[in-house]
């Protein structure tokens, strides 16, 4: 699913690499937590998977393709197979819940009949079927993140990337979001989630990859947030 082979990424204005000789593999169907302090390289890792950045050396394989050899015009096709969720939700404020999810399908040219069918379905999966006509500012943070997850999942992607999805949410709401991500994972989608939330990681007991100053310092299946000291 994802393979990092001796990947180093240094941003032009910095001396220290954001990722330094990272090699790891993530299998299909896994649920992976990416932990580590700010600046440890979590975001760079996710940006490399999305081909928003290219590595300086080494190669990144996602969904069977080596990304540095992927030509620019094929990137959209790659991203259609990857759902993305962010800490700040990234919803369009002047569109309803339904329209926000539909937007993701409209811009890749799906027919209207298809949109009318699958958007209510996915909103039911995230539990917002009765709030389809609301606008984002009428929803709670947790509900807004559910809309974002619905938008990421509406294409049934092979891979879901969540960049601190619970960073703006209170603990109870976070649990709901985690249950939803867990459910999506059980439907067969690989999930990679970066987080600072120790409680969630400890409860879920999934694979944990810890980064520090660009190095993988821990890779545990069924791990916890901190070192098991």
């Amino acid at each position, binding site marked *: 699913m994802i393979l990092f082979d001796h990947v180093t990424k240094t941003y032009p204005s910095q001396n220290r690499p954001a990722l330094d000789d990272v090699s790891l593999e993530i299998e299909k169907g896994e649920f992976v937590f990416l932990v580590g302090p700010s600046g440890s390289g979590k975001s760079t890792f996710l940006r490399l998977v*999305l081909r928003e950045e290219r590595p300086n050396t080494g190669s990144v394989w996602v969904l069977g393709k080596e990304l540095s050899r992927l030509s620019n*015009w094929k990137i959209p096709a790659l*991203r259609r197979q990857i759902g993305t969720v962010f800490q700040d939700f990234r919803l*369009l404020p002047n569109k309803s819940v339904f329209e926000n999810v539909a*937007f993701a399908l409209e*811009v890749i040219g799906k027919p209207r009949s298809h949109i009318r069918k699958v958007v209510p379905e996915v909103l039911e999966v995230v539990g917002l079927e009765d709030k389809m006509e609301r606008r984002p500012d009428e929803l709670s943070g947790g509900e807004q993140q559910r809309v974002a997850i619905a938008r990421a999942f509406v294409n049934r992607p092979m891979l879901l990337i969540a960049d601190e999805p619970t960073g703006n949410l209170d603990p109870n709401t976070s649990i709901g979001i985690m249950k939803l991500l867990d459910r999506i994972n059980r439907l067969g989608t690989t999930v990679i989630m970066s987080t600072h939330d120790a409680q969630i990681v400890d409860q879920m007991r999934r694979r944990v990859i810890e980064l520090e100053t660009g190095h993988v310092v821990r890779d545990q299946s069924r791990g916890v947030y901190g070192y098991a000291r």
Partner: protein
Amino acid sequence: MRASFVTSEVGAGLRRNLTMTFAVIITVAVSLALFGVSLLVRAQVTTMQDFWYDKVEVSIFLCSRGSDAPSCASGAVTDAQRDQIRADLESLRPLVEEVYYESKAEAFERFREQFANSPIVENVTEEALPESFRVKLADPTQYDVVASAFAGRPGIEQVNDQRKVLDQFFRLLNGLQAIALLIAIIMLIVTVLLIVNTMRVAAFSRRRETGIMRLVGASNFYIQLPFLLEAAVAAALGAGLAIISLVAVKSFVIDGVLAPSFQFTAFVGWDAVIAIAPILLLTGIALASLAAFFTLRKYLRV
């Protein structure tokens, strides 16, 4: 690709940036109108050249008593000289298309007609006007052949090419056209800069949408198309205004004012306006689309 989605995005984009859209439309209209006027002036010059070159003739003025040109030192032209000149002109066919002799009496008659309302007529006698041969050339540009053959010959005071007088006038018109074209080009550059800036603002104000579009895997083409269409629509509206102003110039300035006042010459017809209109439309749309395309390539990268 869903047309309804794209058109609604274009409409929303144009409304959101109404003042900028307006500025783009106006600058496109002004620059293209100037461009159109300069093309119209060029068409006018061509029309006048066709009209006048057909009518111009070379005048060979013969010596009268009292002419002070060196070739007239022996006094007025003799009958023998006159016949010889006529014969030589005839021998230049087919370059010489027509030869017409104008006597002093005829010259005086014509002079009186031309200056009918002027007091100058009373001071001019028949004797003061030279007799002449009026020569019409098959190809007016071959004037030099005639000039070199006849200028300075005994009995000939002067060889005159009317084309030279006209050419000065055409040079003036061409100069005006060049100035109009220069201003038009400067305006078009300003327009391009404005479009570049407008697109930058538009791309920035919609970075949220375009960011989401990128993430869900919309193609570059799909992301940029609404912006490109916005620029093209604004440019097309501007070009429309430019064409309207060109039509106004043709019907009010040329047909309404110039043509009645200067009936002796020809003016450009509607065919010129019809030929220029699509040029303006295409120039506007192409320029705006290209400016937008290169701006967006920078600001809406994958």
